């Protein structure tokens, strides 16, 4: 009451102006994310083939899932893929990022290293499928030339590691670049101080670089792990989940169940399970990697 002008200004809201600005995005969010999200959860409690209306069956899809060996197989296959893919990719990317920081400022080199990321998974899969072909592929031809036994890259044992490595080739440059950006953000003074204290290369890396890099590493890990869990394209154009179920990851299983077997209800239940797993993993990662974010204020 004492100051009506201030009170009036406080009450003035930009809401009506904001509506046209955020309207399209809000429609997009509701129609293609929120409502489908709810529908996906609802469908997971139904039996639904695309020709008849969904029939509510309670938790049946979930009890079926827990007893389904194909579901558990998908879990192990996906985990195998993620561990090989992320493990090798992260270590290699860290190595490349440190190399770039120390030996070259060249944007051309960074561009070359990033190039595979610009190619689609499908292109990358085809090129490597060709390079690793048993009969005519370059790798086996070279082995043959030196009279070494040819290697089957897509057997039930080797297919998943092969695919994991193919995707390392595509993503490692991208990951290295993100880590490189993090390295650039570490102030030089910290290194100077370490050098004055007589710290060696390895010691500097372990006690300074890694801890200060943690926020960026956390970010990188969350993106790459969630992406890795959803691996689909590479498998879809090479092994299609085979031999037998050896490369049948979650995404492949979901698509086979829905479009292959026309069981959209059960497929929804599996994708709900995948989403829950991913949320838990992302949450745990953020907690683990950025807890105690002391090191530097970012």
């Amino acid at each position, binding site marked *: 009451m004492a100051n009506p002008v201030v009170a009036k200004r406080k009450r003035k809201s930009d809401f009506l102006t904001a509506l046209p600005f955020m309207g*399209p*995005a809000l429609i997009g969010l509701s129609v293609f994310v929120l409502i*489908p999200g709810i529908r996906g959860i609802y469908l997971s409690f139904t039996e639904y083939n695309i020709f008849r209306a969904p029939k509510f069956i309670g938790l049946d899809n979930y009890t079926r899932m827990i007893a389904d060996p194909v579901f558990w197989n998908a879990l192990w296959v996906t985990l195998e893929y993620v561990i090989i893919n992320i493990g090798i990719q992260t270590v290699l990317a860290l190595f490349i990022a440190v190399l770039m920081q120390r030996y070259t400022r060249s944007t051309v080199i*960074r561009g070359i290293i990033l190039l595979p990321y610009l190619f689609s998974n499908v292109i990358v899969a085809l090129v490597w499928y060709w*390079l690793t072909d048993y009969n005519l592929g370059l790798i086996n031809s070279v082995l043959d030339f030196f009279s070494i036994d040819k290697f089957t890259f897509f057997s039930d044992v080797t297919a998943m590691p092969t695919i994991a490595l193919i995707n390392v080739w595509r993503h490692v440059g*991208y990951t290295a670049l993100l880590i490189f950006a993090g390295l650039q953000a570490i102030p030089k003074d910290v290194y*100077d101080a370490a050098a004055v204290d007589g710290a060696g290369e390895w010691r500097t890396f372990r006690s300074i670089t890694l801890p200060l890099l943690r926020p960026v590493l956390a970010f990188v890990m969350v993106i790459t792990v969630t992406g890795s869990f959803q691996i689909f394209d590479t498998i*879809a154009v090479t092994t299609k989940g085979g031999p037998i179920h050896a490369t049948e990851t979650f995404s492949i299983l979901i698509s086979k169940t829905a479009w292959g077997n026309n069981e959209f209800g059960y497929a929804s239940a599996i994708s709900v399970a995948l989403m829950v797993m991913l949320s838990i993993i992302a949450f745990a990662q953020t907690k683990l990697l950025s807890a105690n974010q002391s090191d530097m204020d970012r």
Partner: protein
Amino acid sequence: MSDKIQTKRQSRNQEASESTIKRSLGSKIFGYGSLTIIVLVTLFPVYWMLRTALSTSKTLFSDPTSLMPVNFTMGGFARALGLSTNAQALAEGGSGASVNFSLYFMNSVIVCVILTVCQVAFSAAAAYAFSILKFKGRDAIFFLFVIALTVPGIFLVLPNFLLIRELHLVNSLFGIMLPGLLMAPFAIFFLRQFFLGTNLSIVEAAVIDGANHFRIFRQIVIPIAWPQIITLAILQFIGAWNDYLWPFYVGSGKPESTVLTVGLGVFKSQTPQGSPDWSGLMAAALIAAIPMILLMIFAGKKIVGSIQASAVK
């Protein structure tokens, strides 16, 4: 005053980097050696694509390790572009199946350009509302977009496919673009961060002068944020160009709605299991890759910068 400190710090940084450059010969050999190997491993498969694409499929077996094309021909490209006759294709080791990568290429261009332009424009408008405008519940609404950012794509593919099917948009380019046309959570998030981090006192001045928000958005904020908008557009375009799962289920039924990635998959599955048409496949893969290679050659610096910026933001 602050300038002086700045230069002092810069020169100190230079000294530091000079001192770190003085390394032993052994570590130099290791460092440059490793970088060379990494560059070779990155580029060689791309060269091998070209070498295979220019070879004759039927005679590839005669010299599988040759670094030069085997029996040089443009036939692979002709087959991929749907330019060669059935007899020609079969003679060179093609499958004779009909593919038309010039059509798929156009489809990809149409989808990705429209998608990127609309997505970035609507997202920028929303980001403006969530950063510069002030109203009750603003941050709560924005939080919904943050949640959307964390929802895995595969989870939404199923219900969105059902929706597109109910709208009778399966096997249409519009059906492929529709779900992303009005916004991308990442785009809103990215631009909002930028708007919040920029000193926009000029905007406040304009508001006090009575300029309306549409004008401020168009004539002040967009020009200031232009480099960020281009960065974002590049990132979204690359993502759209390489997408496979969604356009496969929505568009693979007709050639008129088949995009490049999906066309490649179709081509691959049509070639016979025993002796695939590797030359045709690699030619097709190269056609799909060419825009990205050009983008890298002409805008490499910008792309590298964009990706680095997305890490630290």
